[in-house]
């Protein structure tokens, strides 16, 4: 799916609400106004967790997600981004782009998102393509298929996100 025609545009409904929020702020109701403004647009929320492996009471290996507060090299990290459409309108061609964080390496096959078309960039989010089409050129000018170490960004493309719905996308990395 092509999605190269995105340009900066104005979302008139949101803008007007934000202006209304500012007016409220002058009345000392700033917090309520900001919440109201958030809930009229698209909101992104991201959580990073550490995935640990342990054994349950019958000895089977299970994985569990815990807060990413005690992370050392080699640990697995799960990034979950929730995109919420809090407007009253259908959002289309919803493209969520997430850089592979510095000091981490994307784990092959880990990008997930229900109904989302996943693609990757190896050039700092200039171009995105499917895994099998990614090519990198080394300093000698020789091309080779990209590996997960080459990925700089991940993109999930949702054809649409109805009003008052949300979707989760996730990926895993390992701390270098």
């Amino acid at each position, binding site marked *: 799916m092509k*999605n190269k*025609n*995105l*340009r*900066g*545009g*104005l*979302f008139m409904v949101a803008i007007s609400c934000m202006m209304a929020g500012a007016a409220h702020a002058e009345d000392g109701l700033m917090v309520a106004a900001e*919440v109201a403004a*958030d809930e009229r647009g*698209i*909101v*992104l*929320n*991201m*959580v*990073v967790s550490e*995935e640990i492996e342990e054994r349950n009471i019958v000895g089977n290996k299970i*994985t569990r*997600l815990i807060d*990413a*507060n*005690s*992370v*050392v*090299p*080699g640990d697995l*990290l*799960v*990034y*979950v*981004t*929730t*995109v*919420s459409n809090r407007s009253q*309108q*259908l*959002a*289309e*061609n*919803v*493209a*969520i*782009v*997430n*850089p592979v*964080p*510095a000091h*981490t390496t994307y*784990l*092959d*096959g*880990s990008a*997930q998102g229900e109904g989302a078309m996943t693609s990757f960039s190896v050039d700092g989010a200039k171009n995105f393509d499917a895994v099998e089409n990614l090519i990198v050129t080394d300093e000698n000018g020789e091309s080779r298929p990209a590996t997960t170490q080459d990925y700089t960004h991940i993109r999930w493309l949702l054809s649409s996100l109805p009003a008052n719905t*949300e979707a*989760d996308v996730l990926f*895993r990395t*390992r*701390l*270098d």
Partner: protein
Amino acid sequence: MSNVNPLKKLPGLLATVLSLTMASSAAMAAGTLSGTTVSNSATVNYNVGAIPQPSVTSISVDFLVDTKIDLTVATIDGAAVASTPGSVNNVLTFTVTNDGNASQDFSLSAVALANGIGNAAFGGDDNINADTFSARVESGGLTGYQSGSDTATHIDALAPDGEITVYIVSNFNTGYTNGDIASYYLLAEALSDDGLVGTPGGALSETIVADTPGSVDIVFIDGDGDGAGTSDIDRDAQHSSQNDYIISTAALTISKDSIVISDPVNDTTLPKRIPGAVIEYQITISNGSGAATATNIVITDSLDTEIGGGNIIFNTAYNVTADQGISIQHPGSTVPADYYEYSNAGGAEAAGRGAVIADWNVSGTNTVTVTGIALNADESAVIRFRVTIAL
């Protein structure tokens, strides 16, 4: 703000990629340095009614990389280190590697293995201990242990991925037997890097209670080294490796035989030991299998009682010419190939191994003396000389 916790919705998604996470264990060295902040934020673009909308960016989610304590002690020697009884500064060589992601000091201990059956690092039974032993750190000067400069007993400030050579240095008194084994562990423990040269840092404690968000915690991930004979276990900031000394000393044996060469009646045909018969003495010196090289072997054989009593006399006419009464076959003999006849007036072998000298009467009256023979393991030397039974 929404308070929907996305993690609660994950199990279905996670199950689908579980197998992938197992397969992608990258070769890990020290990794991302302790204290690094890893940040990430997502951006979304979308259209409403075909009109592109301003992109939305999430807040940045950050975490702080904690301190991983990991180390490896490895034995460098490929076989037990041969040591001679009575020798000093016998060296077992190890490396200590900081596999953690922060600079650490390390304490070092040389731990003698308890005696046991089949428990040595390179096979065999640990049955002795060295008389003195200690751990020393390579100072980075000359390669190999230098007693004058490699004097540190702990490691200061070893950087992530840093590796340093450590020695166990031992002295052995005399009295040990060829093949005795003294087995040792080098046990290293990561300490805090106190920033001081010559002073070890304090012991580390793993952060095992509630994590402190936003602070650098300490996690032990080291493995269990060779450790059966040490306190070293998984995740204790310690690691160990085992190495052996094996006593290597010469195992000389000596035997003496005689044969009759000729007698005045039968000449060389079935000669008998009658007066006037020529008798050849043969002294064989052997060094045992696996033994150390013995040098400067001195053999003396006194015939003073027999000669003084008038029973025999030296026969100084050996194979080749007169006045050459002692023959020596030893490793390195070159002139001729296997034998060389020495003058009984004293003379050194011109070529071959060592400076072998055979002579009469230098160490005592009527005594054969041979000096200068060297024998490796499994080598022998044979000394022959002749006497005549007095008429």
